[in-house]
């Protein structure tokens, strides 16, 4: 079943066009990787899916994005609810300067959950789903800033899961992490795929080939090619894709 359908999406920063007639579909409970050189538009594209671009001045968007059949740019769309449904993880882990527990409980509280027992359950479940529970269960009330970089990133994922999203957007989630932390996040993505639809931006093409079901290659604001990951990395249809993944640009 199609979770996200993007149709002829154009995006301008002022007069500068950053995305050009992008058409892309993502199936439910799958992982799609977005690859491409810096400035190609992949992060910009990712940020259109939960309307993070609304926060950037001078952005103009046209075309259509539907999630579960609903046009997310239709007038009257509740953007807070949209971002609850479509959560995002960034390049650098950004835990709040609060305890581990408070980091996770923050979102549910904002959305109205005040029952302490229920909050305890949410914190435990979210940390377990983010494969972090065993490492932090004895230090839930210590500062999250004391965790390692990899643990902080999984904490940020747990923080997302706590508000019950359906789609996870990950913008280079492991680029600041060491190889072991990176592998843990990649294993986590494989597990989360059973419950969530995931879109990940990565500069690491081997990561894209390991974690994703489908891969989309962006270049200068164009979607050059999108296909099953195993096909795109072994026999891409377009020469531009071949040149990029073979490291033969320029």
């Amino acid at each position, binding site marked *: 079943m199609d979770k996200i359908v993007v149709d002829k999406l154009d995006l301008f920063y002022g007069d500068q066009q950053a995305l050009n007639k992008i058409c892309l579909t993502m199936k439910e409970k799958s992982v799609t990787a977005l690859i491409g050189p810096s400035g190609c538009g992949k992060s910009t594209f990712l940020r259109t899916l939960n309307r993070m671009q609304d926060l950037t001045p001078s952005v103009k968007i046209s075309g259509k994005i539907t999630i579960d059949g609903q046009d997310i740019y239709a007038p009257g769309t509740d953007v807070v609810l949209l971002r609850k449904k479509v959560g995002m993880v960034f390049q650098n882990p950004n835990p709040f300067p609060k305890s581990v527990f408070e980091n996770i409980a923050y979102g549910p509280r904002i959305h109205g959950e005040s029952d302490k027992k229920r909050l305890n359950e949410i914190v435990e479940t979210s940390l377990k789903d983010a494969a972090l529970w065993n490492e932090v269960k004895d230090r839930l009330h210590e500062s999250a800033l004391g965790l390692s970089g990899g643990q902080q990133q999984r904490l940020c994922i747990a923080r997302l899961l706590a508000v019950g999203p359906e789609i996870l957007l990950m913008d280079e989630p492991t680029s600041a992490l060491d190889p072991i932390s990176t592998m843990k996040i990649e294993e986590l993505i494989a597990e989360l795929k059973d419950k969530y639809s995931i879109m990940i931006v990565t500069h690491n093409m081997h990561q894209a080939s390991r974690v994703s079901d489908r891969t989309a290659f962006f270049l200068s604001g164009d979607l050059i090619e999108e296909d099953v990951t195993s096909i795109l*990395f*072994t026999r*891409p249809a377009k020469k531009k894709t*071949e040149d990029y993944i*073979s*490291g033969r640009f*320029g």
Partner: protein
Amino acid sequence: MPTRQKFDHELEELRTNILNLGNMVNEQITDAVRSLINQDLELANAIVVKDIALNDLQAIIEEKCILLIATQQPFARDLRKLVAGFKISIYLERMGDLSVDLAKVTIRIGEEEFIKPIVDIPRMSALVQEMIDIGLKAYVDEDCGAASEMSLIDDQIDKIYSGVFGELRSIMMEDPNKVTQANYLLFASRFLERLGDYCTNIAEEIVYICNGKRMDLNE
């Protein structure tokens, strides 16, 4: 400025090594068949010894492919070139072994008079060598189209083998004293038929390099 120059240079070096291996195999087959026709035992023994150099070169190619996959982490056509190069080297090494088997037929028959004129074995050998020449050129040019040409030649080899098999079977049935040598000649024909099959395997790898698709040319 072109990127990955070092990697491209390494791929070129790998290709040269595979070509050298292919030429060595071609030479071994030529010599093996010549040793049989001329009943040249010295040449046959030299083929057995020369196989060591061939095995060594295959080991170098194999090591290089593993190293490049590990260090350069290739994708797409680069990856296909390495995987196919690895497999082609294995097929060529096996073809070298079959040349040795052919030379051993020469040694086993020794100076005994042939039970029949040796006509079909040189014909099969010439076709195998034609396949190797086309295959090596197609490998260099990454020419997908040569595969079907090679497949047609393999069909000719199979037909000759079928005829040789029938002829030698009749000889064995007619005269039990000729059974031993007839068997040796049958083995030699079979080795050449297998050489043709390995050439089609190489053609399949060339197709894989070109378009990433797998096809069975031995069917």
